[in-house]
């Protein structure tokens, strides 16, 4: 059944039903504002709480206590008057706060007084030789299959990369009886020293004990190779083996499945296409929106909450969602804000949730050789552009990602740069001796997710057209 939005205009439209979006929508609806939550998935939860209402995995320790925290957020939302539409893909947002959304193959347009963008994170590209071979996938894709369908790998499986999610996924696979032959840890040894000054905050953060016990659990069952400095996948049309260098020694392991992960980065496409200013984050090595303490962006009326505002994790996302929603309520209906948790308490929650983040960001900062490829390694999967192609274009005058489009069509395929954007920026920055901030990013354009021509053709005529017809 397809449900179109009930109104044409709302006080607040929230985009994305992950932790930030769930919290934001529940907060604004609780304050009595007309609230619409649009979400692309079949149910609430986003990535971190994916399938929270429908997962076949009912034994709570398999996915961990943090996962089930999502259920409370969903309950709070369901208790509110927020209108919630799933399988709703927002494909356009502009500075007039006009939103185009595709629901069940039909597009609708709504407007809002305030928009809270909670579109979360994407996995960082991991462009090693052979990363486009069938049999190589991202850890996030594997986790999606695990959460929604309880599917775990049973062939010869390697996990390579670094970051908290990598260990979480490994633990979840093992608890469900899946197979992992080896973990290739690419954390740079120098990062441990760099992160040390931030260790105290981390020790007192909720991540510490949970993270440590998870790593211990995984290491008890799986061989872990640390200090991996080179990585490549090979095979003839299908992954056959993975080669790596650790401690100066090269090894090759036969493999059926390689799961890659080196952290997540803000999913900036919708916000950037709306004209929101972003800046390069030198620590997290990604683009983050320029926001004030309430999450308000450079475009009046658009706030950003959750990992799309800069990676902070689920608890921080919840706090940011509530802050953004409360700020919106204060602006639209100041009297109604009184019934909400005070801003000071929300900010304290956020500070607590963000404790230890710098430690994690520093420790798991991915190495240059895994971010900036060379030679024949594919950079842009949609148009099959290699690192060498990009450098050749720089040599004859391409100065940034948008100019590169003219030479190589990078970023012009259906993914709109999600799989190559960061790589292209960093590769061009290195080649030209500039900072990523100076090099810039693709100018992103709606539709942020493709829609069919038939769907666009079916869009109702504008009021002016209707009037023109009526006037005859």
């Amino acid at each position, binding site marked *: 059944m397809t449900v179109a939005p009930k109104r044409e205009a709302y006080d607040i439209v929230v985009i994305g039903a992950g932790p930030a979006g769930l919290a934001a929508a529940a907060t604004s609806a609780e304050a009595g504002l007309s609230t619409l939550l649009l979400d692309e998935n079949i149910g609430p939860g986003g990535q971190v709480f994916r399938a929270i209402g429908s997962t076949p995995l009912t034994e709570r320790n398999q996915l961990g206590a943090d996962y089930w925290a999502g259920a409370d957020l969903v309950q709070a939302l369901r208790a509110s008057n927020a209108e919630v539409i799933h399988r709703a893909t927002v494909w*356009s947002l*502009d*500075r*007039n706060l006009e939103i*185009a959304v595709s629901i069940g193959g039909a597009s609708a*347009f709504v407007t809002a007084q305030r928009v809270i963008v909670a579109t979360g994170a994407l996995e960082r590209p991991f462009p090693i030789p052979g990363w486009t071979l069938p049999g190589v996938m991202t850890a996030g894709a594997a986790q999606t299959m695990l959460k929604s369908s309880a599917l775990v790998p049973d062939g010869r499986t390697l996990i390579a990369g670094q970051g908290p999610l990598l260990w979480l996924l490994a633990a979840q696979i093992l608890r469900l009886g899946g197979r992992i032959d080896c973990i290739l840890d690419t954390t740079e040894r120098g990062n441990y020293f760099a992160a040390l000054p931030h260790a105290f905050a981390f020790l007192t953060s909720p991540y510490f004990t949970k993270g440590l016990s998870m790593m211990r659990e995984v290491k008890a069952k799986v061989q872990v190779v640390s200090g991996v400095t080179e990585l490549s996948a090979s095979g003839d049309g299908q992954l056959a083996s993975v080669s790596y260098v650790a401690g100066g020694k090269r090894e090759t392991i036969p493999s059926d499945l390689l799961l890659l992960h080196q952290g997540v980065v803000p999913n900036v496409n919708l916000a950037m296409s709306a*004209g929101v200013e972003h800046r390069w984050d030198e620590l997290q090595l990604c683009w983050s929106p320029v926001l004030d303490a309430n999450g308000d962006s450079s475009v009046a009326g658009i706030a950003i909450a959750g990992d799309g505002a800069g990676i902070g994790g689920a608890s921080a996302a919840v706090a940011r969602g509530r802050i953004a929603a409360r700020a919106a309520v204060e602006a639209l209906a100041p009297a109604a804000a009184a019934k909400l948790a005070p801003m000071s308490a929300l900010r304290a929650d956020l500070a607590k949730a963000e404790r230890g983040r710098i430690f994690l960001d520093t420790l798991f900062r991915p190495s240059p050789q895994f971010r900036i490829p060379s030679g024949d390694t594919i950079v842009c999967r949609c148009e099959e552009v290699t690192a060498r192609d990009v450098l050749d274009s720089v040599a*004859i*005058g*391409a*100065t*940034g990602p*948008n*100019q590169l*489009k*003219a*030479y190589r*069509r990078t970023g*012009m*395929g*259906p993914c*709109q740069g999600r799989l190559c954007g960061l790589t292209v920026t960093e590769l061009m920055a290195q080649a030209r001796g500039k900072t990523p901030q100076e090099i810039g990013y693709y100018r992103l*354009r*709606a*539709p942020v997710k*493709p*829609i*069919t*021509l*038939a769907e*666009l*053709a*079916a*869009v*109702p*005529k*504008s009021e002016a*057209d209707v009037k023109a017809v009526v006037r005859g």
Partner: protein
Amino acid sequence: MTRNVDAIVVGGGIHGCSTALHLCLAGMKPVLIEKDYAGRHASGVNAGGVRQLARHIPEIPLSVRSMGIWERISELVDDDCSFESYGQVLVAENEEELAVCRARVAELNALGFTHEELIDAAELRRLVPAVAETCPGGVVSRRDGAANPAQTTTAFRRKAEQLGAIVREGEAAGNIRHSGGLWHVDVGPDTYAAPVLVNAAGAWAGKIAAALGEPVPVETVAPMLMITSRVPHFIDPVVILRGRKLSFKQFSNGTVLIGGGHLATPNQDRNETVLDWKSLAISARTVFELFPVMRSAMIVRAWAGIEARMKDDIPVFGPSSRHVGLYHQFGFSLHGFQLGPGAGAVMAELIVNGGTQTRVGDLGIDRFHPSTL
């Protein structure tokens, strides 16, 4: 520091780049000043149509001149610009439209222009097999085609620089003034001085002209385009409709560009446009009706470039009517891309020789002079 050059070209679109290139070929040393980067606006993001078809009569000589250059574009800029020549076809959807086409072709023939050719339903179907059966014919301009606009503008810029042009990108031309017989223009901390100034600043050119005492009726517009995912090859020429706002082009990689002149809302100061999806939906409906093969294609991206449109829809081209050494080259009104190569060549002739064999007199800024209005 003031640097003396032979000419200052303001604007790094296809026109500014082409004029700078042709000035270099004539032995001059120009500076090209572009506030963003070459091809950032309309020149880099237009539909890429290389079209003599359906042009206003006053600009046809310039278009014909340009076409000759397009056909040897690699020799000029060492880049094929992805130029391909499968013709452009104007489709009449009914007999009334075909009658208009017939009259137009007769008018052009009487003036001595032969590039437009009336075609019947059979020839239309041969050229555009996918078109709806009900269309009775149209007009074809067989030498027309399309090119990659960003690649082209970039190639002109690169070649101009190779031939000695100074290219300044990323800072706007400021404080344009005439003193001591020379034009002076500031770029950041630098000043350039030259006897010649070319105003090729696109959507920003009207302000420059007005500041120099030559206001013209010009507005800033942002025509929208959208591109689809790859679909099986089904069409070679560029197709435009006689009666509705639609242009249509399939590239060699299978993607299809849909345009036609529906407008976005430009914000010139922010270099930004806000798209009007309800108008784009009209284009989608037209394509849906005419080309059933396109119905399941995905719309991958839509955008709009910022440019200048004149009240009378034809460009301002030629010497100033007030100042010695000032030349205007702007206001191409949604159809300037094809004219770029030829306009640069003719502009260089006007500057270097004081005249040209190509008839461009009807395009002068003096047509807006208070005494002629």
